[in-house]
């Protein structure tokens, strides 16, 4: 008798689509996946409606990969629906895991974003200062739009998450490993674990050459230096998130001669990813007095945006304090 297929869903919240594409990047392994799983809901590829998902009995889906952050009421609603319908809900990718790039919007408020988009942007003419409405009357009845939230949140902020697969996007090999484990009924790690990633820091196993005593005398933007292709980026004065970022990505960026940006998130037991990184970076500045230290730090144009590039919504300070209220 044919083995029963598992039911699988892939959904996007506030996402760029890259995570869904990373699922497609399994290439011909897709045939094995389709042989083992029925894809019951996947907006990028299938025309299943929200009503169809809402009509499913609870726990109907075996595995849901939720990618994207929670930006509006639609994201939150679907996160809760999929939680109820899924036996295993996985936060897939940096945005669902930590808020990701959309989380950087937490440096602004909803009103500041609306003001830029609907009033100030160069291509906009909006003398009435119109804003999107959640509902409006039209000839056909009431038309509705999702409510845009002030804060971007991670998936775990709105519902219970079983596992996290980090990455922007996650390395496809890791997805296949996790998928195989679920299909074959292998023993799964404890609830709430980060899976498909290592527990060490990138620097631990980095392929570049390192000196024991690192010193930073100047922060360079990547275009300001000619990378020699083999020395640690930090030693060349180029910021790299390696010291606090998990392994698991197979050094895709480093191998492509680009510094780590931290998409795999912090190593275990780090409570505030950016804070940890600031601690590591600042302590190796090769100056001992305030003036020269500030001069070196002038080379760091956007520390908050850099150190919290993927993790702002899950950090201690998960948003900027609004300027005036």
């Amino acid at each position, binding site marked *: 008798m044919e083995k029963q297929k598992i039911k699988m869903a892939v959904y996007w919240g506030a996402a760029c689509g890259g995570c869904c594409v990373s699922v497609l990047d399994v290439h011909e392994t897709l045939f094995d996946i389709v042989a083992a799983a029925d894809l019951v809901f996947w907006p990028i590829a299938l025309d299943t409606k929200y009503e169809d998902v809402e009509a499913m009995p609870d726990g109907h889906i075996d595995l849901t990969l939720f990618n994207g952050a929670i930006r509006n009421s639609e994201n939150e609603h679907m996160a809760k629906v999929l939680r109820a319908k899924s036996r295993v809900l996985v936060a897939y990718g940096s945005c669902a895991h930590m808020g990701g790039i959309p989380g950087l919007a937490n*440096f602004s408020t*909803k009103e500041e974003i609306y003001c830029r988009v609907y009033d100030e942007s160069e291509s906009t003419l909006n003398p009435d200062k119109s804003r999107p409405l959640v509902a409006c009357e039209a000839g056909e009845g009431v038309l509705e739009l999702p409510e845009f*939230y*002030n*804060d971007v*949140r991670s998936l775990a902020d709105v519902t219970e998450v079983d596992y996290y697969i980090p990455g922007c996007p996650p390395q496809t090999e890791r997805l296949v490993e996790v998928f195989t484990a679920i299909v074959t009924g292998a023993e799964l790690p404890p609830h709430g674990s980060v899976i498909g990633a290592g527990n060490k820091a990138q620097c631990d196993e980095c392929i570049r050459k390192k000196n024991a005593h690192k010193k930073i005398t100047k922060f360079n933007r990547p275009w300001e230096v000619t990378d020699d292709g083999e020395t640690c980026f930090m030693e060349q004065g180029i910021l790299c998130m390696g010291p606090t970022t998990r392994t698991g990505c197979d050094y895709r960026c480093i191998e492509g001669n680009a510094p780590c940006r931290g998409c795999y998130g912090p190593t275990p037991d780090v*409570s*505030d990813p*950016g*804070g*940890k990184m*600031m*601690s590591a*970076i*600042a*302590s190796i*500045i090769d*100056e*001992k007095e*305030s003036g020269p*230290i*500030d001069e070196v*730090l002038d080379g*760091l144009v*956007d*520390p*908050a*945006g850099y*150190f919290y590039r993927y993790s702002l919504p899950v*950090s*201690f*300070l*998960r*948003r*900027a*304090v*609004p*300027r005036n209220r």
Partner: protein
Amino acid sequence: MECNPKIVAFLCKWCSYTGADLAGTSRMEYRPNVHPIRVMCSGRIEPTFVLRACRQGADGVLICGCHPGDCHYQEGNYRCLRRFHLLQKHIRQMGIAPERLKLEWISASEGKQYAELVNSFTQTIRELGHCRVKETMELLT
């Protein structure tokens, strides 16, 4: 209502905590707003400590360590100084006034300076008013 600020102070065990102790044993009077936390070295104070204090409702954070050259571990206080400058830059971006974070060197004999520092820093924070970090982080909109 007059602002009665909460201030968290991280004091290094070897110099600054001893200095604060001296202020106490010498019966110097100073503002009661500071909640001191003893750490082994100012180099132990991670940015995370400061951010957590802000998140939990501190209106100001004071960091004290040994004078440059006097660190019990040779250069912990230099590390602290570097982190302090980066942190000030960071909290400014997060909408927090950098004046809410202060670093001063206090030696074990500087009880008087510690008492004056607490008074002047408390006054600075009172003028800035309550820090809105905690309420901002708790309010989800």
